[in-house]
C-alpha cells in the first residue's frame, strides 16, 4: 500500500480549480486528499517552503524510440528523463520501428511501461506504417490503449486521407494530432531566411507549415471534428489558428520550448543540435509564439523530445537527423517565460499539465481532491547551469547544455510514489 504524505507550506498552483495559495497538500493511498482532511498520523512530511506544488506535467509529444532504436532511448530511460523534468505522464509518438499502427505494438509499449517511472500513453499511427495511404485500425488501437493518433514525422500529404482520419477517429473519441508540413515545400534543412542564405543551406519556408495548418483547419471546419496541431513554429500558422478558434473551429495547438527560446540565428556555425523539424524560425516568429502562449492561441507546451546519438548528430549539417531532447529542459526553459514576466505561474501549469491532459482526454493535470497523486514540486527561483548530469535520457542532443536556467523540478510523484527527487528530502 502506498505511503501517505503531507507536503507542507508550498505554493499550490492548480489551474483546474483556480487555486493559487500557500497551503499543505495531503496525499493518501496514492490520491490527493480533500483540503480540510487532516493528514494520517504516519504521513511522511515534505517541507515545500519556497516551492510550487503543481500537478504532474504531461508531455503530449515525446519520442521514446522503443521499439527499434533503443540505442537512442528506451521506454524506461525516457520515463526517467520525464520524471526528472517534472513530467508524470508522457504520450509517445508512433514513429518507432516498427510503427505503432496496431494493437500488438501498443501492447508491447504498455507492457514495457509497467516498470517505467512515469505513466506512458501511446499514440497510434493514423495510417498503416504511417505511409499516408490507408487508415490504420483506429478502433483496435483505441481498444489497446492509445490516447490519440498521429503520423508525426511523416506528415499526411493526402488531404482525403486526413479528412477521413478526422471523421473516423472521432467515432472512437481519438484526438488527431497533425504534423503540418507540405513535404514538397519542406525539402530543406533549416528555416528559409537570411541565415540559410548566408550558410548556403537549403531552406524550409514558413509557408510549408502554414499551408498544411490551413488545410487541416479547413477540414476540421468542414467535418466539424477536432484537430490538434503539433509543434507550431510560425507567426503565419498562429494567425490561422487564432482566426479559426475565433470562429469556433475545434482546433488546439502546441509549441515546443525551442520555438520560444531560440531562432534560426542559433544554427550559425552549423550546430546540428539546432537542427529540427519544423526548424528554428525567425525572431518575429519567436515573438509570435510567445504572444500566442499569452493569448491562448496555443494551448500547450510539448517537448518534441527527439533523442539521437552522436551517430546521427556528429556529422555534416545537411546529413544530421532532426530533433533535440527536451524532457529535462522543457520546464526550466518555460520557467524563463515566468521569470521574464511573459506568462504567470498559473498559465505555465495550464500549458504544461492541465491543457495537454484535457486535449488527450486524460484524468490528470489537476490537484483537486480525489485526483491521482501525480504531482511535481518546483523550485522556480533556483538558477542552475544545465549540464550533462541533469540529463537522464540516453542521448545528449541538446543545444541548451551550458545555459543558465531559472529553476527546476525538485521532486516528482506518480500515484503517491516519489519517482524523482533532487535536493528536497
Amino acid at each position, binding site marked *: 500500500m502506498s505511503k501517505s504524505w503531507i507536503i507542507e507550506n508550498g505554493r499550490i498552483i492548480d489551474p483546474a480549480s483556480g487555486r493559487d495559495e500557500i497551503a499543505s497538500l495531503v496525499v493518501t493511498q496514492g490520491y490527493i486528499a480533500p483540503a480540510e482532511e487532516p493528514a494520517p498520523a504516519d504521513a511522511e512530511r515534505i517541507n515545500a517552503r519556497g516551492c510550487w506544488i503543481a500537478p504532474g506535467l504531461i508531455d503530449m509529444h515525446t519520442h521514446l524510440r522503443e521499439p527499434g532504436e533503443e540505442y537512442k532511448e528506451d521506454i524506461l530511460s525516457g520515463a526517467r528523463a520525464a520524471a526528472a523534468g517534472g513530467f508524470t505522464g508522457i504520450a509517445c509518438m508512433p514513429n518507432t520501428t516498427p510503427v505503432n499502427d496496431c494493437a500488438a505494438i501498443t501492447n508491447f509499449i504498455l507492457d514495457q511501461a509497467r516498470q517505467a517511472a512515469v505513466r506512458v500513453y501511446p499514440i497510434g499511427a493514423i495510417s498503416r506504417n504511417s505511409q499516408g495511404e490507408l487508415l490504420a485500425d483506429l478502433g483496435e488501437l483505441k481498444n489497446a490503449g492509445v490516447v490519440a493518433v498521429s503520423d508525426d514525422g511523416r506528415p499526411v500529404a493526402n488531404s482525403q486521407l486526413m479528412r477521413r482520419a478526422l471523421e473516423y477517429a472521432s467515432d472512437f473519441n481519438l484526438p488527431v494530432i497533425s504534423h503540418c508540413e507540405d513535404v514538397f515545400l519542406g525539402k530543406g534543412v533549416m528555416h528559409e531566411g537570411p541565415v540559410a542564405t548566408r550558410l*548556403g543551406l537549403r531552406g524550409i519556408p514558413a509557408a510549408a507549415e502554414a499551408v498544411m495548418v490551413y488545410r487541416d483547419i479547413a477540414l476540421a471546419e468542414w467535418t466539424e471534428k477536432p484537430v490538434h496541431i503539433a509543434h507550431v513554429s510560425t507567426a503565419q500558422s498562429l494567425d490561422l489558428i487564432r482566426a479559426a478558434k475565433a470562429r469556433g473551429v475545434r482546433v488546439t495547438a502546441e509549441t515546443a520550448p525551442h520555438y520560444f527560446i531560440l531562432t534560426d540565428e542559433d544554427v550559425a556555425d552549423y550546430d546540428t543540435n539546432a537542427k529540427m523539424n519544423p526548424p528554428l524560425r525567425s525572431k518575429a516568429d519567436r515573438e509570435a509564439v510567445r504572444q500566442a502562449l499569452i493569448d491562448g492561441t496555443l494551448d500547450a507546451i510539448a517537448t518534441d523530445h527527439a533523442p539521437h546519438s552522436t551517430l546521427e548528430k556528429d556529422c*555534416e549539417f545537411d546529413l544530421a537527423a532532426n530533433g533535440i531532447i527536451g524532457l529535462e529542459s522543457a520546464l526550466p526553459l518555460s520557467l524563463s517565460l515566468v521569470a521574464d514576466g511573459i506568462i504567470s505561474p498559473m498559465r505555465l501549469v495550464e500549458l504544461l499539465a492541465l491543457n495537454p491532459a484535457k486535449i488527450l482526454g486524460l484524468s490528470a493535470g489537476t490537484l483537486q481532491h480525489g485526483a491521482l497523486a501525480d504531482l511535481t514540486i518546483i523550485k522556480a527561483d533556483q538558477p542552475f547551469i544545465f549540464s550533462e548530469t541533469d540529463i537522464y535520457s540516453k542521448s545528449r542532443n541538446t543545444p541548451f547544455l551550458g545555459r543558465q536556467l531559472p529553476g527546476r523540478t525538485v521532486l516528482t510523484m506518480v500515484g503517491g510514489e516519489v519517482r524523482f527527487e533532487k535536493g528536497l528530502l
Partner: protein
Amino acid sequence: MKKQYIFPHRHILGMEQFSREDIAHILTTAESFKEISSRSIKKVPVLRGRTIVNLFFEPSTRTRLSFEVAAKRMSADTFNINASTSSTTKGETLIDTARNISAMHPDVIVLRHSSSGASQLLSQHVHAAVINAGDGAHQHPSQSLLDLMTVQECKDRLDGLKIAIIGDITHSRVARSNIQGFKTMGSNVYVFGPSTLIPMHIEELGAVRARTFQEALEGADVVMALRIQRERLHDPLLPSLREYAQRFGLSSDPLGWAKEDAIIMHPGPVNRGVEMSPEIADSSRSVILNQVSNGVAVRMALLYLVGNA
C-alpha cells in the same frame, strides 16, 4: 614605422573571415608568386618537407589540379584522395576520415565537399590547417580570391567597381564568396538571374538584387556568369536550357549595357551556348583563362600563408 602585418588566420574557410587588409595581403603574396609559374624551372623550396592532402568528396578537375600544381611549385608533397577511392563509400564518416588523415600528420588539408559547413567541421577535428576548396553552396574562398586578383590586374583597382554576377546564385558558393569578397574590397555587387535561382534575403549579404538584366549590366565593369547545372531542370527551377540561354545568357546584345571595357568572367567549366555564347567566351573581353592562371598563384599564396605555420 608601419606595424608589421601578420596573417592572422589558421584556416581558410570562407571570405567572411577576411578584412580588407587580409585580402590585400593575400593578393600581394599571390602576385609575388605568379612569376614562378613563368620560369623554366617552376619550383621554389618554400614548402619543402610539408605534406598537403587534397581531400575531394566531389568530382573536380580544375580546382584539384590547381591546388596540386600550386603545392608542387612550392615543393610540398601532395596526396590526392577522391571520394570514390576513399573509405567513405564504406560508411566511414567525415570525422573518422579526418581523424585518420590527421594521424598521418599532414600540414594542410584541402577539402572539397558537397555539404555546406563541411570544412568548418573538419577544422574542428584535425591538427592541420584546413583550406576550403568548396563546401556545398556555402563558400569557395580560393575562387573568390583568384577572381579578385584577376579584376585587380585588369582594372588596377577594386574600390568602386560595379560587378554583375549572373545566373544561379542560390546554389553557388562562388556567388556567396564573391559577394562578400568584392564588398569587403569596396566594389558594388549586383546579382541577377531567374527568380527561382536568386535566394531570398541575398541583399543581407551585401549584394544588390537587380530586377532586370539591364539594371544588372548597366555600366558594369565586370560581368561574371555562373554555371547552370543540368539537374536544376528537375527541381523544377528552370523550364529549359534553351529558354535560359535566351533570357539570361550573355551575348553581345545584353553586354551592350555594360561598359565598353567590361571584362567577362566565369568560374568554369562554361556551358557554351547556355551561360554565354561561344563568341563571348572566346572574345578579347573574356579573362576566363587569366582566372585559371591566377588560380595557381592564389593557391600558392594560401598554402604558403597557412602551410608554413
